[in-house]
């Protein structure tokens, strides 16, 4: 490895990138593949990424681009089937809330899902999300607002 800095970056960022990949793909195996491809690209370009001074941002941008490009290639966006039956057991609902949120996230368009992931898991401001997604901050706010309103509405309905 040319640069010890990349080794440090690899150690410190892998868990976060796997998490972001998991929110985007909602599939642990696909998340692993996405994180691996992202880190390989960052490693290949490490001399430039290091100069930029924000390797985490570069990696997040690379991951989102890989994810969105893959979705564009596939065209069809799988939409999760939302069960119609209400859950009466609140304890069970609480235990399964993570799975429910996964299901609902799966129903969000890729751009909205990416915006929600970058805001609430990567804690990025609107401006950075806009730069990564290649859109305006207004569009980011619109993605977040619609995404969250979908999440809130469906979670409420389910409980």
């Amino acid at each position, binding site marked *: 490895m040319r640069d010890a800095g990349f080794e440090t970056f*690899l150690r410190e960022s892998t868990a976060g990138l796997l998490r972001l*990949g998991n929110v985007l793909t909602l599939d642990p195996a696909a998340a692993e593949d996405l994180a691996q491809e992202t880190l*390989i690209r960052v*490693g290949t*370009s490490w001399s430039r990424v290091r100069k*930029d001074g924000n390797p985490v941002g570069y990696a997040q941008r690379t991951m989102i681009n890989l994810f969105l490009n893959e979705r564009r290639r596939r065209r069809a966006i799988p939409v999760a089937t939302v069960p119609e039956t209400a859950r009466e057991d609140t304890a069970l609902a609480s235990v399964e809330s993570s799975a429910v*949120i996964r299901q609902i996230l799966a129903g969000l368009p890729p751009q909205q899902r990416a915006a929600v992931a970058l805001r609430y*898991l990567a804690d990025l401001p609107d401006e950075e999300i806009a730069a990564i997604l290649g859109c305006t901050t207004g569009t980011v706010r619109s993605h977040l607002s619609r995404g969250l309103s979908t999440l809130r509405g469906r979670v409420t309905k389910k409980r």
Partner: protein
Amino acid sequence: MLSKSDFDLPVPADFTDRVRRGVRRRRRFRAVAVAGCVVLGLSGISVAARPEPDRGPAVHAPAIGDVAGLHIGYAPPGLRLDPRVNSSVHVVTEKGLDTDGADPGPGDASAVVTMRVFVKANGGNQLFITVLAPFRTTPRADRATITRWLSDWSTIGLEKVDEFTVPAGTARLMRGQTTDGPKHQVLITAADGTVIDVGGNAELTAAELRAVAQGLSRG
């Protein structure tokens, strides 16, 4: 509602090893690919100067191929266009094209490099047309600066022996000295800042390179 820990995944034991292997593999692959292009380009420079009359192309010769949007109107007899098109994006600095195999990062000036090769009947490479088009500009390097860097890099160690106009832009016939004798190439600078390098191996004459340069035109 969204909890980070809900989406945590354990880092597989061999994950970092797989990433390291992937990075090494890609760097090797790129280094080999870029080195191949550089070797082809450099060998294209080495053309012995022989006093031969120009064998120019017909003015409206039908295109025999394309390279980065340019029609190739002429190639010396006996050469066949290799169907493969080599194209890649590289960082450009004041030192020229960065061929260390790394991708351009944010904030890097870059150029798209596209190459077509003409081969002999026995498969040997003979004529190389390389188009270096400025791609991403930066506050420090606008398009004209990138063009200058590419042009300077392409002519390192060579002297200008002639300048003439071709349909694709302004061409310079360059000459360098090696142990094998004088070496030539034609370098065209297009109005849009693209730099076109026409080179061949020692069996091609300077006049033939000029003729190839004359045959290049925008569609």
